[in-house]
C-alpha cells in the first residue's frame, strides 16, 4: 500500500495531465450520459487534489522536475513545476472541478443528449491540454498541448445550441490555428538556433546567441501566437462570438482557463525563456504590449457598456480584464507582475462565477435552441425584474459584478490595488489613472444589468420563472464566494502570485510587497 502511495506521490506532476487524458477515451467508450459525467467528475477532482498537493510541495521544497519515462532532459520530456505554474495548475483544475458539477443540468438543456459523452471527452481533453501547457518543461510540448487544448475547445464551442456556434467555432479554429502555427514556427526557429527545446536550456543558451536574428523572429512569432490565444486587442476577434455561442458551461470553463494559460505562456516565454535582458531591455516588448493592453482595458469595458446581450457583454468585459493582466506584465515591476498574476486567478474565479450565473438564467428561460433569434435568452430585456424571481442568481451576478468593478473586499480590488501600486512603482501614474477609468466604465456595465435585474418590471406574467437548481447555483456561489473570501483573506493568493512574480523577475526580487 505504502508502495502504491509513493508511486502516486512521485508521479504527481504527470498524473494530473495523464488522468484526464486517459479518461477522455474512456468517456467515449462508456457513452452513457450520466456515467461519463461521473468519470469526468472523479478525474477532475482527483486532478484538483493532485495540483493542490503539488503546489504545496513546490512551496515547501522548491521547483520540481519530472522526467517522463525516466529519460533525462536533453533527450527525454521534462515536466517542470515551479511557483508560477503550480498556481496556474491550481486555478485550471479548480475551475474544471467546480464547473463540471454544473455541467449535466446545463448540458441537458443546451447539448443534444447523444453528444454528452463527447462533450465530456472534449472537456477532459481540453483540460489535459491546459494542464499540459502549464506543466510542460520544453517548448515543443507546450505547442503540442496547446494544440490538444485548442482542438478540443473548437469542438466544445461547436456544441453550442445556436447555429452560429458552428461558424464561431470555425472562425476560432482558423485564427487559433494561425496562433498555434506561429508558436510552432517560433519553437522551430528556437530549436534551429540553439539546438534545444528544453525551456531551462533555452533560457541559458539564448543570452549567448546575443540577439541572433533567428531568435528575434522566434520571439515575435511566439508573442504574436500567444497574444492570439490570449485574445489581446486587436487579436481578439475570435473571442466575443466564441464565448457568446458556446454552451454556457463551456464558456464559463474557457473564460476562466484558456486565456489564463495563454497569459502564462506569454509571461513564461518573455521573462524566463527570452529573459528580461533580451525581451524588455533590448527589444522593449513592453512598449508594444503596454499600449495594446491599455487599449484592450478601455475598449473592452466601453464595448461592454453598449452590448445588450449579457453573455456577450461579459465576453467584452473579459477583453478588458485580459488587458489588466497584460498591463501588469508590461509594467515589468514586481507589484505589477504580482497584480497581473493574481488577477489571472481572481478574474478566473469571478468571471467563471458570472458565466455560471448566466448559465442559471439560460437554464430557466427555456430552450435557446431557437438558434439566431432577435432576443436571445441572455438578452438584457429578458432579465427584467429577475431580481425577484431568481434572487440567488441575481445576487450572485451582483456580487461577481462588484468584484469586476474592483470594490474593496472583493478579489477585483486586490488585483487592481497591486496593478496600481505597480504603475506607481514604474513611475507611470497615467497607467494607474487609466486603470481607475476602466474600473469606472465597469461600474457602468455592471450597473446596467443591476438596474434591469432589480428596478425593471418583469415584462409579462407568464415569464415569471423560478430559481435555478442548486446543481448549477451551488458552483456559481462557490466561485462568487471564493471571490469574496480571497478578497478579504488575500494572503494565499497574493503570496502565491508574488512568489510566481519572483520566479519571473528574479532580478527584482526583494522589491515590492
Amino acid at each position, binding site marked *: 500500500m505504502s508502495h502504491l502511495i509513493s508511486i502516486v506521490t512521485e508521479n504527481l506532476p504527470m498524473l494530473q495531465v495523464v488522468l484526464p487524458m486517459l479518461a477522455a477515451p474512456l468517456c467515449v467508450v462508456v457513452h452513457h450520459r450520466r456515467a461519463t459525467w461521473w468519470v469526468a467528475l472523479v478525474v477532475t477532482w482527483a486532478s484538483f487534489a493532485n495540483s493542490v498537493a503539488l503546489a504545496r510541495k513546490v512551496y515547501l521544497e522548491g521547483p520540481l522536475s519530472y522526467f517522463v519515462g525516466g529519460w533525462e532532459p536533453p533527450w527525454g520530456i521534462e515536466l517542470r513545476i515551479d511557483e508560477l505554474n503550480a498556481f496556474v495548475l491550481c486555478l485550471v483544475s479548480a475551475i474544471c472541478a467546480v464547473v463540471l458539477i454544473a455541467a449535466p443540468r446545463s448540458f441537458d438543456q443546451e447539448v443534444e443528449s447523444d453528444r454528452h459523452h463527447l462533450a465530456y471527452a472534449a472537456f477532459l481533453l481540453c483540460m489535459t491540454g491546459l494542464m499540459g501547457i502549464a506543466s510542460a518543461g520544453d517548448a515543443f510540448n507546450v505547442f503540442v498541448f496547446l494544440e490538444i487544448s485548442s482542438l478540443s475547445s473548437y469542438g466544445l464551442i461547436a456544441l453550442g445550441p445556436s447555429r452560429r456556434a458552428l461558424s464561431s467555432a470555425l*472562425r476560432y479554429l*482558423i*485564427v487559433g490555428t*494561425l*496562433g498555434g502555427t*506561429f508558436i510552432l514556427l517560433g519553437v522551430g526557429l528556437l530549436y534551429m538556433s540553439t539546438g534545444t527545446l528544453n525551456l531551462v536550456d533555452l533560457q541559458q543558451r539564448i543570452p549567448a546567441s546575443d*540577439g541572433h*536574428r533567428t531568435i*528575434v*523572429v522566434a*520571439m*515575435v*512569432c511566439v*508573442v*504574436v501566437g500567444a*497574444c*492570439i490565444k490570449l485574445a489581446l*486587442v*486587436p*487579436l*481578439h*476577434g*475570435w473571442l*466575443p*462570438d466564441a464565448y457568446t455561442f458556446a454552451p454556457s458551461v463551456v464558456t464559463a470553463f474557457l473564460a476562466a482557463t484558456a486565456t489564463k494559460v495563454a497569459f502564462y505562456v506569454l509571461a513564461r516565454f518573455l521573462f524566463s525563456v527570452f529573459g528580461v535582458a533580451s525581451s524588455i531591455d*533590448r*527589444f*522593449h516588448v513592453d512598449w*508594444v504590449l503596454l499600449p495594446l493592453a491599455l487599449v484592450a482595458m478601455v*475598449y473592452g469595458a*466601453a*464595448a461592454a457598456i*453598449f*452590448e445588450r446581450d449579457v453573455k*456577450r457583454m461579459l465576453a467584452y468585459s473579459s477583453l478588458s480584464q485580459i488587458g489588466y493582466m497584460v498591463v501588469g506584465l508590461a509594467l515589468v515591476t514586481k507589484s505589477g507582475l504580482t497584480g497581473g498574476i493574481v488577477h489571472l486567478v481572481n478574474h478566473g474565479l469571478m468571471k467563471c462565477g458570472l458565466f455560471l450565473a448566466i448559465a442559471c438564467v439560460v437554464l430557466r428561460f427555456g430552450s435557446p435552441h431557437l438558434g439566431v433569434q432577435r432576443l436571445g435568452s441572455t438578452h438584457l430585456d429578458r432579465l427584467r425584474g429577475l431580481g425577484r424571481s431568481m434572487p440567488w442568481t441575481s445576487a450572485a451576478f451582483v456580487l461577481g459584478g462588484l468584484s469586476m468593478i474592483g470594490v*474593496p*473586499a472583493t478579489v477585483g480590488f486586490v488585483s487592481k*490595488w497591486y496593478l496600481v*501600486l505597480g504603475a*506607481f512603482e514604474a513611475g507611470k501614474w497615467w497607467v494607474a489613472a487609466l486603470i481607475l477609468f476602466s474600473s469606472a466604465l465597469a461600474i457602468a456595465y455592471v450597473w446596467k444589468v443591476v438596474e434591469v435585474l432589480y*428596478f425593471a418590471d418583469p415584462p409579462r406574467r407568464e415569464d415569471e420563472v423560478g430559481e435555478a437548481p442548486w446543481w448549477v447555483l451551488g458552483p456559481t456561489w462557490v466561485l462568487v464566494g471564493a471571490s469574496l473570501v480571497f478578497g*478579504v*483573506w*488575500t*494572503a494565499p493568493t497574493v503570496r502565491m502570485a508574488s512568489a510566481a512574480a519572483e520566479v519571473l523577475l528574479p532580478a527584482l526580487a526583494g522589491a515590492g510587497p
Partner: protein
Amino acid sequence: MTTWLQSLPPGVIMAVGGLLLLALRGRALQFGLVVLPVVSYGHLLALPAEHVVQLTIMGLDLVPVRIDRLAMVWGHVFHWAAILSAVYALHVQDRVQHAAAIAYAGSAVAAVFAGDLVTLFVHWELTAVTSVFLIWSRDDRARKDRDPEECYRAGLRYLIIQVASGVVLLAGICLRWADGGGLEFEGLATGDITSAPLWAQLVFLAFGIKAAFPFLHNWLQDAYPRGTHTGTVFLSAFTTKMAIYALARGFAGTDLLVPLGVAMTLFPIFFAVIENDLRKVLAYSLNNQLGFMCVGIGIGTELALQGAAGHAFAHILYKALLFQSMGAVLWSVGTCKATELGGLFKRLPVTALCCMVAAASISAFPLTSGFVTKSMTLSAAAEGHMTLVWLLLLFASAGVLEHSGIKIPYFAFLAPTKKDWSAIERPPWNMRAAMVTTAVLCLGIGVFPGVLYRFLDFQIEYEPYTALHVVGQLQLLLFATAAFVWLVRIGAYPHEKRATILDFDWIYRRALPAGWDRVVRRSSVFWTRGGRLAENARQDGLVWIQRWVGDGAALTQTRTIRGIALWVLAALAVGLAWVFWLH
C-alpha cells in the same frame, strides 16, 4: 474580562439585525423594528466608558471599537434618533424600507465608534448603500410628491455621490498606507489644510462631501425631499452628522472649516426663502445647521468643539422632529408643497404644536434645546475675536428663524387657505407618540441644560441663561418676527410659487450633459465630413462612441475571418518591423 459582547462594535446589532428584518412580516417586523435599536443602545450602555478593541486582519491594525467621550455624544443621540424614528415608522408595512433604515442607523453608529480609517470606510459605504433604499422605496401616501422615476434618478445620483465620497476616502487611506502611515482615525490634520499631505486633503474632501460643503451639497437637497415620509426622518439624522463627527475627530482646528462653515450657514438661507417643497426647505435648513457645526470644529477650541457636539446632539432631535411633522403632513395630505398647504392647525393640532416646538428649537428661542447649544459656537467665535464670523453667524441665526422658524409652521399650519381639511386622516398614534416624545426632549434640554452638559460629560462650564443672552436672543428673534409680519402686511413677502429652484446641481444635471451633447455633435459633424451624414450622427452622443467601440465597430473588424487574419498579419509585421528596427 472581555467577552465577545464587549468586542462587538456598537451598532452592529442594528446593522446585522436590520438584514434579518427582511425575513419578518406583520407584528414580528414591527417588534423587531423597535427592539433592535433598543437592544443596540442597551449594548452600548453596558460597555465601559473608555474602551478599545484591536484586531489585526491581513497585516492591517484595525480598531473596530473605540469608545470615548466624543464618540459617546453621537452614540447616545444616534440611538435616540433610531429609536424615535423606528417608532415613527411603525405603521409602515415595508420590510425592505425598515431593514434598510435599521441597517443604515446601525452602520452610522458603528462608523462613529470606528477607531481606524479602514473600519470607518466600511461603515461609510454601508451607510450609503443602505440609505438609498429609503429614497427608492414606494410610499403610497406621498405619491403626489414622489414620482417613482424621479425618486429613482435622485436616489441614483445620491448613491453615486455617496459612494464617490467613500472612494475618495479610500484613495486617501491607500495613499497614506502606501506612504507608510498608520490607519488611526484621530487628528488627521489641523491648521492649514492646503499644506497638509495629499491623503489628508482627500480624506477631508470625502468627509466634506457627506457634510455637504458648498458645491458638494446638492445631493442633500436633491435626495432628502424624495425620501419616503418616514425614510427622510432617518436620513436627516445620520449621514451628515456622521460626517460632522468625522470632521470633529479628524480635522478639529482646521482653519478652512471656518469660512466653509460660514458659507454653509449663509447660502441655504436664500434658497430656503423661495423653495416651495417644505421638505426641501428643511434640507436647506439642515445644510445651514451643518455650517454652524463646521465653524465650531474649525475654531477648534474646547468650547467650540463642545458647542459643535452639543449642537449636533440637539440638532438631530429638532431636525428629526421637523421632518417628522412634515412627514405627518405628507402622510395626511399627500404633499409637502407650501402652495398646496395652509390652515392644517385645526385638523392636525398635535403635529402643528410639535412642529412649532421644533421650529422654536431650531431658531434657538430660550427654553429650547437650540438656545442652550448653538450659542456655544457663537461664544467661541467671539472669544476667538472673529468679529466677522460672529456677525455672519448672527446673520445666519436670523436666517434660520426665517425658513425653519416661521416659514415651515406658517405655510403648513397657519396660512389661510380655501382648502377643506376635514376629510383628511390624522396621523396614527405611533407618529404622534414619536413627535410628542421628541418635542418633550427638545424642551427638556432647553429647560435643564445642565442635565445635558453632565450627560455628555462636558469639560467646560457654560451658562446659557444669562440675562443679556436671553434678552439679546429674544430681541433678535422677535424683531425678525416683527419684520416678517410687517413684510407680509405691506405685501412684500414673496408668495409661494410652484417652481424648480436651480442650485449647483444644475451644473451636473443640465449644463454638463448639454455641453457634452454639443461637443459630441460638433465632433460627429467633423468626423463624418458632411451635413447629410451629420444628420444621422447627431441623434445621440453615445451613438458616436458606439460606432467606435460597439460590436463590429470600426476599431476591429471582428466579424470576418479575413478581418481577423489581417490584424494578425499586421501584428506580425509590426512586431518584426519593431524588433529589426531596434536590432
